């Protein structure tokens, strides 16, 4: 009996991500959710700009590449044109929380029936480790060599809390992938986000607190420890909004 194998919804190609990058784990969780719900034939993914730009090569379902930050807008169009398909976006923090903030907030407030997987690794990975909207106060990056100064650069954007303050979105949860327990929780959350869409419950966003060992200048395990010590206290895990259970009662 096979206990664990590569999910079918993930193509049999090597991922281009750096060693220890948790993008690979989240890709696998999304693919497992697609497999378990049997939606590989009807799922349409929207890839972002950022490290995950080549996600269209990795998922076995149909994929679309959106302009930087515009994935929720593209997903809205696809979902409205083809409501029977399951539409998800996979976005990083530079894509979703910076250039794409407007699209994200408006898709959320319209309660579009789409699923968003948001990777928060507190840095711009693909371009070489610049300060992102989600970089922690005092975090050293390429563009904040003395640490993020909140007087000039402002405070990190807590996307889950921000979107949860809107009346629109149905389901907002923040998870992490720094240890086995959190990975299993993340899998449940991602599956629920897809189920919400299948049941027509509206906008679901799962924020995944991830690591970037290369640009943080750490080993993969040190990076996961840093997630535990620094990121999770600043970005507490949990369900921030759940209109789906209210409606069910």
């Amino acid at each position: 009996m096979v206990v664990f194998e590569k999910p079918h919804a993930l193509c049999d190609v090597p991922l281009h991500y750096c060693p220890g990058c948790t993008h690979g784990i989240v890709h696998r969780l999304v693919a497992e959710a697609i497999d378990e719900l049997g939606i590989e034939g009807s799922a349409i993914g929207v890839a972002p700009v950022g490290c995950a730009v080549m996600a269209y090569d990795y998922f076995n379902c149909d994929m679309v590449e959106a302009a930087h930050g515009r994935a929720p807008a593209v997903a809205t169009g696809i979902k409205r044109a083809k409501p029977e398909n399951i539409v998800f976006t996979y976005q990083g923090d530079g894509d979703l929380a910076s250039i794409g903030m407007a699209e994200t907030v408006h898709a959320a407030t319209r309660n579009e029936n789409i699923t968003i997987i948001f990777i928060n690794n507190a840095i711009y990975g693909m371009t070489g480790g610049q300060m992102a909207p989600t970089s922690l106060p005092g975090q050293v990056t390429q563009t904040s060599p003395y640490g993020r100064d909140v007087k000039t650069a402002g405070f990190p954007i807590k996307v889950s809390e921000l979107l949860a303050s809107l009346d629109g979105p149905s389901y907002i949860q923040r998870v992490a992938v720094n240890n086995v327990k959190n990975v299993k929780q993340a899998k449940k959350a991602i599956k629920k986000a897809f189920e919400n869409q299948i049941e027509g419950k509206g906008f679901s966003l799962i924020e995944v607190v991830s690591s970037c060992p290369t640009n943080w200048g750490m080993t993969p395990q040190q990076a996961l420890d840093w997630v535990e010590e620094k990121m999770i206290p600043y970005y507490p895990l949990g369900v921030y909004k759940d209109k789906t259970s209210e409606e069910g009662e």
Partner: protein
Amino acid sequence: MQVKTCRKGIEMPKVTFNEDLCKGCGLCVNACPKQIIELKKDVINKKGHSPAGMTDQSKCIGCAFCATMCPDCVITVEK
């Protein structure tokens, strides 16, 4: 000396590593509760990394923690 053998009728977990995909990040090494995974320092795979491998298959409990933490789907666990 008592020799450890598998009880009859219970299949041992089998863990296989697709070594060519491994990037040697070592997350599986730290995830293993039995500490029986290590990076093979004397082997270099196609990607130029030292791949992870198992030191003692007989101690494996088939929890699949290693595969859960692997970012590259290198590991397949059978029981």
